[in-house]
């Protein structure tokens, strides 16, 4: 059975051979170009023979060349400077690729740096280098996201959700009852009313104290050094530091910070001489 004619068959004999898609390996190519007949390549072999037949007799030299061939070349006319053959193109190509690649990388880094899209260390380095080399100023990276921003919130309405910052002040008495004048009893959400509520991550001093906080005003001297909390209304479960001045001299001793053994930031706020 004869094979079906394919798309690439260019002959009328329907041999089903993909004539133009036949492979030609380097060995066959070398043999053809050396003038040797290669089986299965009659057309190419004939063409090579035809091309090589173009070599005719020696062409007639021009008068200038004929004089050289007749009399030779005087030694003083001979040029002894080194012959320079064309350099391989791959060197130029590799240099071109290297330059384009370098330009692309620099453009990408500078673009990302201008958009402040690099990682913080890289952004800082790029901004420094660019600022040092050029008059341009790239944005420097912001503060580390792990570090809370210091926002000195002194508004009295801020909820006392803070955990006292680290100080050396001893922890106040946790067993003090709410009736003892703690300023956190007003809201009813003060978890310090339960003696056991001060442990763990529960900040007993947080809450919605209204009496102690509002009535006492703000003790600016005690509040100022304390970092602000970003969530003043997160109730007693919040363990974020808060600078909120929640106590007054007359109320702070009533177990404020009583449940927080690690209290400290609010030392001047929460401690009273009688506590």
């Amino acid at each position: 059975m004869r094979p079906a004619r394919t798309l690439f068959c260019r002959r009328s004999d329907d041999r089903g051979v993909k004539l133009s898609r036949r492979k030609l390996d380097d060995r066959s190519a070398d043999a053809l170009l050396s003038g040797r007949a290669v089986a299965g390549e009659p057309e190419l072999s004939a063409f090579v023979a035809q091309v090589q037949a173009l070599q005719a007799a020696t062409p007639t030299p021009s008068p200038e060349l004929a004089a050289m061939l007749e009399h030779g070349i005087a030694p003083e006319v001979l040029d002894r400077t080194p012959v320079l053959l064309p350099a391989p193109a791959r060197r130029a190509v590799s240099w071109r690729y290297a330059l384009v690649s370098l330009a692309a990388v620099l453009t990408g880094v500078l673009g990302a740096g201008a958009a402040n899209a690099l990682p913080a260390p890289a952004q800082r380095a790029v901004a420094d280098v660019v600022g040092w080399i050029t008059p341009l100023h790239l944005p420097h990276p912001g503060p580390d996201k792990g570090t809370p921003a210091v926002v000195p919130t002194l508004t009295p309405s801020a909820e006392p959700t803070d955990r006292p910052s680290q100080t050396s002040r001893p922890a106040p008495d946790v067993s003090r009852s709410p009736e003892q004048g703690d300023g956190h009893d007003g809201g009813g959400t003060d978890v310090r009313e339960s003696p056991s509520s001060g442990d763990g991550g529960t900040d007993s001093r947080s809450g919605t104290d209204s009496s102690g906080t509002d009535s006492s005003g703000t003790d600016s001297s005690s509040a100022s050094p304390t970092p602000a909390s970003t969530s003043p209304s997160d109730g007693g479960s919040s363990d974020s530091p808060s600078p909120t001045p929640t106590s007054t001299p007359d109320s702070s001793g009533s177990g404020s910070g009583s449940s927080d053994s690690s209290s400290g930031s609010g030392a001047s706020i929460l401690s009273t001489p009688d506590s």
Partner: protein
Amino acid sequence: MSDARLEEVLPAAQQGEAWALRALYEELAPRVHAYLRARGASEPEDLTSEVFVTVFPRLPSVTGGAPGLRTFTFSVAHARLVDDLRRRSRREPAASYDPDTDPRTSASAEDEGLDRVQTDQVRRLLDALVPDQRDVLTLRLLADLTVEQVADTLGKSTGAVKQLQRRGLIALRRMLEGPS
């Protein structure tokens, strides 16, 4: 003349000896002429003479023996050819030929005619190739250069030359097989 013969002649030619120059010319000139003619040079004979007028005074600086001489000679030929083709491309189109007004005569007009037909067929096929493929194939076929010598002549890598010659032959085969 083999490369061994070229090696024998080359030292004397580098000293400017006339007999050695003639020997080199008789060996290399037919190949240079055929290469220029196959590539469509306007005046291949004159251009061949220009090539050797350039090559001979610089023979003392040629290194690499016979292969180096072949490479250098065809580098010059290729450069002259490129110059000639560029020069022609910038020229105005020539007036059409009128044989009745041509006073020249030739004793071998029929032979020249047959030769021209053959050359035209070869050139038509070669002209249909990509220029790089055409350069590689003509240098390999007519100049009898190796892959490395062609690479040096054209300023390409040997891998690129092998690729070009293989693709050029495949393209030629496609054309020779004719339309479906």
